[in-house]
């Protein structure tokens, strides 16, 4: 619906931009996107690029009904009034309803080295001689040479991590005494902090695809799309339509092409997930796991991708192999003109491909579990670690598995999964072998996933796990000053905040829950606000995590973007952890219900949600950003999410005078 509205707007602008009569061709889309094209306003500039950063130009043009043909070769792009050199290829739209003769013209891999604002125009002529011209704009952001460059860049993304996620993790891990935090998180100790605006190209509320692509390209994208601008060949059953969109050069591609910096992606999610994929793939559909993971290897000659760590083994096994999720409908083949212009392999629809074998035969070292990760050869230069079939288990379950108090990781049959800090250490050790430096993205993925589930203790522990990885990065930057570490999120998830603390012991809380009298017992007399909240005090074990999260007078969390849920404030139990569960010791061990609405029902305290969904949603709330190392003083104030990219690249390309 949103896309249709935008098309309609673009159509109107195209008509206004045409000097011809009403029966003239119209330009319904002009890429890169701009307000000048869409509304006629010159500001704000939507699309910004680095000097020399490559991106595709594209326009969709519809002839009028009386002359449904465009003159072959008549589509021409002009920047600042001068024709753009290169070949304009054409194709027909797909996946929607378009006037007869509608044509998409594309000019691939354009770049511009002149800083400042530029106009982009497209012209076309139809068979009866009438022409159309439409104009948009974009900006080339200057890089100022001003000091030592950041040799290494590490971007840590706590997926869905808003300010309250950080606060909750700090309270749980460090505690508070008489109003003073007893300690800080690693990300708290970074010297420069600002806040980030997170809107996407088509909504105030972003999803994780454009939420990460702003950092990988400096541009706004449509939800669900990675490294590409929207086009008119979306939808349908042809997966190739997902991979032919206008591309924008990624940070990994740019830094590898210009400086030879290699790159890595480390995540607790499936490695094809939106955030890691934003740094090494281009597709209009984030679900195309087969093609995304194929491209990780196929296009590693462009991205310099040398480390991939996370879950997602299912995309790397031949389609006939048990556990494989590879399929033709999620695979890819690039148009020849795209592959040629960008200098990348065209790919193939090959679900039977042994991608894991191809990685290994291409010189990648493969680690299947924590033990293998910790024993890779010291001369490893390319590292692939796939520790589960899809998303990795969350910190709470991994830690309790190590403590022997939970069988969840065993139930998933992957009992030996590394923590994010261990993966980060391994990634840095491999990438740091490149004398030209590296770019590394580290993602704490399940902060978001567990916030969606409104599973408070699980996202808090995942935030702590993420912070441990941040500490690894900061230690490396401390020892290697030509390193920039940025810690931020892609968006806030669930509208989380800390509403106070319980005023009762855990035993008293359980007794109240057992009465099943709802708010009268589970809210009233339990939820302490203001003075009654006091200072929750968790005991941290030697492994860095709370000995238990079911303490007396625990911290309490509220959700603004919540679905209906029952709340009892207790840690969502696993059978071995909760003596209240009757089936402790039975196999399978977990009898806990799946949905917030079906969970914690014993106390009968229903919290009505504001959204009509079964899980909580992302919000448009700003998010925090902290930075340490070379160029870090830039990261203060209120920033658009795309600003992060240009500040980061200023440090990498132009350097920074001072730390």
């Amino acid at each position, binding site marked *: 619906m949103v896309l249709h509205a935008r098309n309609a707007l673009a159509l109107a602008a195209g008509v206004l931009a045409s000097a011809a009569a009403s029966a003239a061709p119209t330009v319904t889309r002009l890429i890169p996107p701009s307000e000048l094209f869409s509304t006629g306003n010159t500001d704000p500039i939507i699309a910004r690029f680095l000097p020399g950063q490559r991106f595709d130009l594209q326009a969709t043009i519809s002839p009028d009904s009386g002359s449904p043909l465009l003159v072959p070769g008549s589509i021409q792009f002009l920047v600042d009034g001068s024709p753009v050199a290169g070949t304009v290829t054409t194709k027909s739209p797909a996946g929607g309803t378009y006037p007869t003769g509608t044509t998409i013209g594309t000019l691939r891999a354009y770049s511009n080295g002149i800083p400042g604002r530029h106009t982009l125009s497209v012209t076309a002529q139809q068979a009866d001689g009438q022409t159309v011209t439409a104009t948009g704009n974009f900006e080339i952001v200057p890089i100022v040479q001003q000091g030592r460059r950041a040799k290494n860049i590490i971007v840590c993304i706590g997926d869905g991590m808003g300010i309250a996620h950080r606060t909750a993790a700090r309270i749980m891990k460090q505690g508070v005494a008489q109003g003073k935090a007893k300690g800080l998180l690693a990300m708290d100790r970074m010297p420069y902090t600002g806040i980030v605006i997170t809107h996407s190209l088509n909504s105030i509320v972003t*999803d994780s695809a454009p939420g990460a692509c702003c950092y990988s390209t400096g541009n706004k994208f449509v939800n669900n799309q990675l490294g590409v601008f929207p086009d008119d060949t979306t939808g349908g059953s042809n997966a190739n339509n997902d991979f032919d969109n206008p591309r924008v050069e990624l940070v990994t591609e740019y830094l590898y092409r210009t400086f030879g910096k290699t790159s890595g992606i480390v995540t607790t*999610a*499936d490695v*094809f*997930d*939106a955030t890691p994929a934003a740094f090494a793939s281009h597709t209009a559909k*984030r*679900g195309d*796991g087969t093609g995304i993971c194929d491209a990780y290897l196929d296009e590693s000659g462009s991205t310099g991708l040398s480390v991939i760590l996370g879950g997602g083994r*299912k995309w790397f*096994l031949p*389609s*006939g*192999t*048990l*556990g*494989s*999720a590879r*399929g*033709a*409908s*999620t695979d890819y083949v690039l148009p020849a003109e795209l592959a040629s212009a960008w200098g990348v392999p065209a790919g193939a629809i090959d679900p039977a491909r042994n991608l*894991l074998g191809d990685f290994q035969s291409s010189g990648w070292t*493969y680690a299947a579990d924590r033990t*293998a990760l910790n024993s890779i050869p010291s001369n490893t230069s390319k590292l692939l670690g796939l520790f589960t*079939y*899809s*998303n990795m288990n969350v910190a709470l379950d991994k830690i309790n598995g190590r403590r022997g108090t939970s069988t*969840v990781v065993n*139930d998933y*049959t*992957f009992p030996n999964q590394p923590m994010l800090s261990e993966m980060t250490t391994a990634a840095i050790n491999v990438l740091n072998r490149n004398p030209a430096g590296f770019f590394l993205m580290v993602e704490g993925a399940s902060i978001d*996933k567990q916030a*969606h*589930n409104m599973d408070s203790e699980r996202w808090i522990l995942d935030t702590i796990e993420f912070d441990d990885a941040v500490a690894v990065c900061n230690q490396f930057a401390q020892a290697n000053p030509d390193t920039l570490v940025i810690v931020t999120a892609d968006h806030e998830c669930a509208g989380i905040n800390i509403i106070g603390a319980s005023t009762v012991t855990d035993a008293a809380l359980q007794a109240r829950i057992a009465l*099943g009298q*709802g708010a009268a017992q589970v809210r009233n007399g339990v939820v302490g606000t203001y003075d009654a909240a006091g200072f929750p005090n968790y005991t941290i074990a030697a492994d860095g995590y709370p000995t238990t999260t079911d303490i007396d007078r625990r911290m309490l969390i509220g959700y603004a973007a919540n*679905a*209906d849920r*029952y709340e009892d404030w207790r840690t969502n139990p696993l059978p071995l952890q909760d003596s209240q*569960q*009757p*089936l402790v010791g*039975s*196999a*399978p061990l*977990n009898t*806990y*219900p*799946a*949905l917030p*609405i*079906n969970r914690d*029902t*014993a106390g*009968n305290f*229903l919290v009505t949600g504001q959204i009509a*969904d*079964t*899980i909580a949603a992302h919000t448009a709330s700003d998010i925090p950003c902290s930075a340490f190392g070379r160029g870090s003083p830039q990261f203060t104030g209120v920033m658009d999410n795309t600003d992060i990219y240009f500040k980061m690249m200023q440090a990498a390309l132009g350097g920074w005078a001072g730390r």
Partner: protein
Amino acid sequence: MFTRCFRSQRIMVPRLPAALAIVIGTSALAGSPTSEKPPTAGDASPAAGTVAPPAAQAEPIEPSPEPLQGPVALDLLDLFVHPIGPEGMEFSEKTRSLDGKRVVVEGYMVRQELPYGKRFLLTTRPVILEEDEMGPGDDLPPQTIFCFLPDNLAMTVVYTPARLRLTGTLRLGHREEPDNMVSFVRLLLEPPEKPSPDSTPDAAPADAPAPPGQP
């Protein structure tokens, strides 16, 4: 209903709910607790309350080459050889031996965002599949079975959080499903038996809270 069931579990050990997760219209038959014991490996007799008469069995996807036999209990945790190696999984010998045969399995229906149609997923523990938001990035355990309703039944699936006990014909092998998911283990369900008085849930106490609605 679930609230009542969940609370009652505390005094009903080792009661296990058992039923098909199938509804006719919007009236769920699923999640009805019974007092029977779970079947054990080698059970040859049909599990009461879960097995339809042989004549009523339907084969909507892959016709069974064998005559009906009593279902054999298959623990989802025993689907594959343990531990899983560094690459693909491997069916256990028992799983392979049950290909094409009637089995009874227990597990939890995966909660999906998109409509179920005539298929749902069954796995070892409660899981939310956020396929609309996350695509095929998921938290599914490897031990997940694709369960299909008979095509000739005017039934649809609604979610139920209860632990389920299902009977049907096991099918193994790679297949790409219409929604782009890939299945390796499928269960062709048998039609549900009409609920008997014995399988009716305990009556709720007069002061019991209203049950949470289906999301």
